[in-house]
């Protein structure tokens, strides 16, 4: 299947479409979900669901086989990453190497919120010591409230 390449500049590759593998209906849902989380190493911007490469065809059959043998999702992901590395997993596993990836955004968020608190405080300190008289402040505020609407 053809997958995007670049929304930005228009560079893309056309490849053969993925061959359709018939899977028992009871596995169809898991099969689709698994394939969408596995990366094809040949056409590296495609999932196993979309890639038309020969390797992807083989690996789809492997996934089907493992589903039929009753393996869990974790076992199937492990089968793939044991052979091809974490690179095949579009959902990177949480391990020390990916801590920054998984926890970084939330650390940044907390840092940002703390930053806001400090900015508001520091700002109020300087603003309070500014040279406006009370009546001037009132005027300014009146203007601001007006503009607010």
């Amino acid at each position, binding site marked *: 299947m053809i997958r995007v390449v670049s929304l930005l500049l228009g560079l893309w590759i056309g490849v053969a479409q993925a061959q359709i593998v018939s899977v028992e209906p009871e596995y169809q849902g898991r099969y689709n979900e698994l394939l969408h989380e596995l990366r094809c*190493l*040949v056409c590296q911007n495609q999932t196993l669901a979309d890639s038309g490469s020969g*390797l992807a065809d*083989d690996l789809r059959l492997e996934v089907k086989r493992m589903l039929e043998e009753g393996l869990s999702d974790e076992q199937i992901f492990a089968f793939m990453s044991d*052979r*091809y*590395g974490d690179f095949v997993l579009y959902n990177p596993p949480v391990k020390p190497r990916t801590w920054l990836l998984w926890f970084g955004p939330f650390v940044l968020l907390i840092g940002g919120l703390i930053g806001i608190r400090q900015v508001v405080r520091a700002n109020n300190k300087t603003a309070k010591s500014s040279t406006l008289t009370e009546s001037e402040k009132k005027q300014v505020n009146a203007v601001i409230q007006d503009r607010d609407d």
Partner: protein
Amino acid sequence: MKSLIPALLFFVISGFLFVGLYKDPTLVSSPLVGKSIPSFSASTLFYPDKKVTQADLIGEIALVNVWATWCPACKHEHPDLVALSEKTDIPIYGLNYKETDKAEARAWLRDEGNPYAFSISDDDGRIGIDFGVYGAPETFLIDAQGVIQHKRVGVMNNKIWQRDFLPIIQRLRREAL
């Protein structure tokens, strides 16, 4: 000095981008390095009746080269492999990966030289999957215990041999002494 943070962050990122310019983003390091070669049982290209297994590859330092006639880069690296097999005593085993035309494969080796001690027939690509093959040609370096020490994705030539393989082989030999 808070206002310096964005500039510092930017230069750190730029450093990474610069390093990245000289790396191939499509190369994926193999998790199999440091592990024993996977087990298999298959026939060979010239002796369809004879079965070989992983035990036949173990015993001395060796190379396993993944190839097929449908792979243009494999044809490209072939003369270098032949030259390599002539100049070293390290055995090279072929993994004839998803061969589409065995007759042509045999003819090719007869005409252009056969660098392989033997070539394992991996008709359905199952052995290739266990070896984590994703882009033929690939070359594995295994030690005397059958542990994979290095994997090269892409063509093999003298320069790569000297740079990536020889140092590991020399280290293995030193350690074996």
